[in-house]
């Protein structure tokens, strides 16, 4: 032990000062490069790319903003059905997503995947595909496949939900205590019995929490899917925007906000009661 200490190079104030000088030079260099990058981005994307004439003076901007302030009460009765539709798209989409998640989570959990070299990559691919494509893109795809309406919205929500729910569920399965699994195997239980007795009870609270969380997010998602023709409030929003009825736009935004707050409140309460 003591011998090793003697082999250390002798430290002097010169070495320490030299090191600090060097690191200051590097830090200054990095900062300068970052500032230059930001300045260049502002020049290219904001200064060159904005239609300054259309924007006009500051007063014009305020006036344009002001157009949105106000509520179109006449629109209320036309919002009831789309609001319910948005809510149902979120619910049915989440439910369908959960069903797709069952094989995805089963294949994607390293410790229970039936045939690792094949089933594990399949599950991982499903999860990545689901998450890396935006819900609007999924909706566009399904509108093209099955036509306009709530159905493509439900499909888009379902497919988009798989990534998160399946990944979290697979991780929950990988984290289980293997003791109960061993116990159920040792009484002569088969794979289904191991699943029902030893795995599900351990992951259920966590998975339910994730599903409810995803459902809450899906309400947000389904509110905009109408923009591409997949039903619900988004479609009304799109129409109000196209007819320049800015008060109507505001009314729809408030309806969306109300629905999301409702979802958040429900989600919060339910998750608290199961965890």
């Amino acid at each position: 032990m003591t011998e090793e200490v003697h082999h250390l190079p002798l430290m002097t104030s010169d070495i320490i000062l030299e090191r600090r000088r060097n690191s200051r030079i590097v830090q200054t260099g990095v900062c300068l490069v970052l500032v230059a990058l930001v300045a260049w981005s502002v020049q290219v994307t904001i200064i060159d790319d904005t239609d300054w004439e259309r924007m006009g003076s500051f007063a014009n901007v305020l006036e344009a903003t002001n157009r949105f302030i106000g509520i179109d009460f006449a629109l209320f009765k036309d919002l009831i059905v789309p609001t319910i539709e948005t809510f149902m798209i979120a619910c049915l989409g989440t439910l369908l997503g959960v069903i797709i998640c069952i094989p995805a989570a089963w294949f994607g959990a390293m410790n229970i995947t039936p045939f690792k070299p094949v089933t594990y990559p399949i599950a991982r691919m499903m999860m990545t595909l689901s998450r890396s494509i935006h819900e609007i893109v999924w909706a566009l795809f399904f509108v093209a496949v099955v036509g306009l309406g709530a159905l493509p919205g439900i499909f888009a929500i379902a497919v988009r939900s798989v990534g998160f729910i399946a990944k979290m569920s697979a991780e929950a399965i990988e984290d289980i205590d293997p003791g109960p699994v061993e116990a159920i195997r040792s009484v002569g239980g088969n794979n289904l019995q191991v699943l029902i007795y030893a795995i599900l009870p351990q992951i259920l609270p966590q998975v339910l929490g994730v599903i409810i969380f995803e459902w809450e997010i899906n309400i947000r998602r389904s509110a905009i899917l109408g923009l591409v023709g997949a039903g619900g409030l988004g479609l009304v929003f799109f129409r109000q925007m196209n007819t320049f009825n800015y008060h109507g736009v505001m009314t729809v935004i408030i309806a969306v906000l109300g629905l999301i707050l409702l979802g958040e409140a429900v989600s919060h309460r339910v998750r608290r009661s199961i965890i």
Partner: protein
Amino acid sequence: MTILKVTDLHASYSTSGPEILKGITFEVEDNDFFAIIGPSGAGKSTLIRCINRLVEPSSGEIIFDDRNVTTLPRGELRMLRRDIGVIFQEFNLINRMSVMDNVLSGRLGYTGNLRTLFRAFPREDIDHGLRLLDRVGLIDHVDKRADELSGGQRQRVGIARALMQNPKMLLLDEPTSALDPKISREVMGLIKQMATELKVPCLCNIHDVQLATEFCNKIIGLQDGYMKFNGPTEDMNKEKLDEIYAMEVL
């Protein structure tokens, strides 16, 4: 009569990894309470787990109740496991289920998939479970969740679950090492009493030599995968113990 015959058993966790069991041979008679002692890492748990193939042995022969365990196909292995009750060190209960459901899970080997799905166990199983819970002193805790119980109580649930199988043999993997000394003695006493009453032979991993000599009639001493002792408890003495535990640095 011999219920279990193990011949030249070898086991390792991976083909390239170190061998955990290096040629173990012994026999369990149908009235034995057999102890397996030895320092940590000697292979006690692996040996217990090889008997019902929770761990696959790499070579050797295990004959249980006239069946060759090592060559049984999956389905028949499940049938065999029904006849061997296991009591675990960490209890291995299903925490979010009730005490009764945990005890009933001992019958899963006899329960179809549809009944499993709806937890629809037949009345005689429920009666049997209640009798066992009464015997282990938990009749007041039938509806409690398993994680509400103390350590000693949980192991009693573990005992009831194993006996629910109507086993022909019990495997005990350090059944008391998660418990304090007083509770340990009570739990060992209960296991011994139930085993004698139901005429079930036991094979018990235990690192507490005192408890082993007190409750068991035969002892196997393992050290680093080798069997250093195999004989009746009376033949065990200080020198042999010192040899078995020689590798443990104190």
